[in-house]
């Protein structure tokens, strides 16, 4: 199923647009049809797509991408404070600043490759976190986080007379306005913020697809396959990797800007390296190096985070109440480590499982299952590139 779509980009694109735009309707039966979660799907989808351009195509594993997300958030909030509550200037600034920041970090980190690169980006991200958390307090407002206040200048907006904080808007359309539609007992919520993020996600996806199919994308894949050989043939790979790094940094900046658009505040915790780890996880889980994978991974993780965090012991007792008492207590005792606050444990285990058994991610798994149903051999499987196919060295 997926491999056919890979051959036919137009179909994939239409399929993707349909999935995203119909999200509020498709996901409502799953209990995920509310705007806040849908926005997070889109935002982290963009973040993961951007990360995939670096990791999936060039194989450079960055552990510091959350720094760019945070930078994007901060610049967007500053734009809301100083210029206008319209989201467009905020997003432009977020992307530009994140791009410049990633140019700086990329220029230094890309001097090394492999593990060195991962560690360097990790160190940079942690440094940015410390900068935002304490050193640059005048700009970032330290631990409290950057927030809107009533007396911000906002020089382009009309004077604020309402007495409350203004909300972000897209040329007058407020981001958090929602129209509800009831249908067969289900409530479908159509939210402006979500559709704005959705359009951004579709644009981001389209751009990523063009990059994947372009000569530039091919060059990046060549770098992943065998950088030495490229160097020996006289190609300077540095500009290509740097360009990929900056592009993915700009994607992260866009995601951070959108985060600020849906909820206008920015905090340092967005830049912590666990946040960088999360995007790595999303990409790997979905399938790095594939187009749809990162978006799927992001949706999967955010969805299950939402579901699992809500389950507590009494819910578990409700589920297993048909069992004899002792057995019920035992099962609930075992399971309570994995739900609620223990969601991260589940996530960690899931992550390890995927890395160990399914290095191609969920898409690879789906392809394997489809092949198995069709009774084909594994070897003739799919076009989905296996990120672990290492070249002969």
């Amino acid at each position, binding site marked *: 199923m997926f491999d056919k779509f890979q051959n036919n980009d137009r179909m994939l694109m239409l399929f993707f647009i349909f999935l995203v735009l119909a999200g509020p309707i498709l996901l409502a039966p799953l209990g995920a049809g509310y705007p806040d979660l849908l926005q997070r799907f889109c935002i982290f989808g963009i973040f993961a797509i951007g990360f995939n351009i670096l990791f999936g195509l060039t194989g450079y594993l960055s552990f510091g991408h959350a720094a760019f997300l945070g930078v994007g958030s901060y610049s967007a909030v500053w734009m809301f404070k100083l210029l206008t509550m319209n989201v467009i200037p905020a997003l432009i600034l977020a992307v530009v600043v994140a791009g410049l920041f990633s140019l700086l970090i990329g220029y230094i980190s890309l001097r090394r490759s492999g593990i060195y690169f991962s*560690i360097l980006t990790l160190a940079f991200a942690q440094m940015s976190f*410390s900068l935002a958390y304490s*050193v640059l307090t005048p700009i970032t407002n330290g631990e409290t986080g950057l927030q809107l206040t009533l007396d911000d200048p906002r020089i382009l907006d009309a004077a604020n007379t309402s007495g409350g904080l203004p909300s972000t808007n897209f040329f007058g359309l407020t981001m958090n306005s929602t129209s509800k539609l009831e249908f067969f007992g289900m409530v479908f919520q159509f939210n402006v913020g979500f559709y704005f993020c959705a359009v951004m996600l579709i644009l981001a996806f389209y751009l990523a697809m063009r990059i994947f199919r372009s000569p530039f994308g091919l060059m990046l894949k060549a770098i992943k396959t065998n950088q030495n050989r490229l160097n020996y043939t006289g190609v300077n790979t540095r500009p290509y990797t740097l360009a990929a790094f900056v592009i993915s940094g700009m994607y992260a900046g866009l995601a951070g800007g959108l985060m600020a658009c849906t909820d206008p505040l920015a905090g340092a915790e967005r830049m912590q390296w666990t946040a960088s780890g999360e995007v790595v996880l999303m990409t790997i889980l979905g399938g790095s190096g594939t187009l749809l994978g990162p978006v799927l991974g992001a949706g999967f993780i955010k969805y299950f985070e939402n579901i699992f965090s809500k389950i507590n012991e009494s819910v578990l007792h409700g589920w297993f109440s048909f069992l004899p008492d002792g057995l019920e207590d035992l099962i609930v005792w075992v399971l309570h480590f994995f739900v609620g606050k223990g969601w991260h444990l589940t996530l960690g285990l899931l992550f*390890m499982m995927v*890395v160990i058994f399914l290095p191609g991610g969920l898409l690879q798994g789906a392809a394997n299952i489809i092949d198995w149903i069709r009774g084909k051999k594994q070897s003739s499987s799919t076009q989905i590139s296996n990120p672990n196919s290492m070249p002969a060295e």
Partner: protein
Amino acid sequence: MDAILLQILNGLDKGSAYALIALGLTLIFGTLGVVNFAHGALFMIGAFCVVTLQKILNISTVAIDPTTVDFLGNPLKVKTPYIVNWFGEAAGSAIINWSVPLAILFAIPVMLFVGYAMERGLIKHFYKRPHADQILVTFGLAIVLQEIIKAFYGANPIPTPAPEIFRGSFDFGVWIGMAENAVIYPYWRLVYFAFSAIIIGSVFAFLQFTTFGMVVRAGMADRETVGLLGINIDKRFTIMFGIAAAVAGLAGVMYSPINSPNYHMGMDFLVLSFVVVVVGGMGSLPGAVLAGFTLGILESFASMNEVKGFFEAMYLPSIDQIIIYLVAIIILLVRPRGLMGRAGVMEE
């Protein structure tokens, strides 16, 4: 002069922790070629060995003491640890008092086992996989270990006090013939430094002066040839992994009185230890130790009020938070291989 000495001393304890963790990381990297993102978790498990031992030692019998009553007139419950019942009042409370040093004995077998199990159970299967996979799987393992500890011990730091005679501070300046009250230094930090110096020394001595260490060093230089000589090098490397885990664990055990163990302490130290390893030069043991102490001392110098004030005038308050990263960047720009790195390590 005394201010400088004080800062050097203050930097020693953090520097020792960095050096010990970085030493373990480098050992694992040098022998097995794996970057272990779960090494911080090993440090944390070491610290939680102390917590566990403390809990075990404090398991108590509860008796009702009819002679004393609380303000409602109910008799008070008196807890007596079993240890006190068994060994008598003096010996029992001394054992509880010395639980941190005792935890060393408890932690060594635990850490050796954890390291051995980790290498045989998981990391063994990743030697032929790309480096990115090794990073990812150890990162996942770090999350899992951290969350397990959190599930059993809670998210709050658990205080683990040092033995009573090592609590408080002493006048270090008087020892070396300076004026009184010039250099006041906590006892335990000196103990920590001495302990880590001993550990570092014994690791180097072990590698340098024993046959086992000689084989391991040979294996680090050329694994294949050592294998061809009929030596089971894999087994020795597994043992080295266990030793590296024990080094990280012991660093955690002794650090627990300085910083109460909490579940994310490993992650906090891991990032800085990576910086230390990279600055020292990947795969170089002396480099790791040197860079660990240098960066620890540097950090403490940056937290001096004079230095802070200087940077604050340049609109960079609390420079001590980022000084390590800044220095690391500069060193890597000037010497990309780190302070003592060799050519050809991790340069594919």
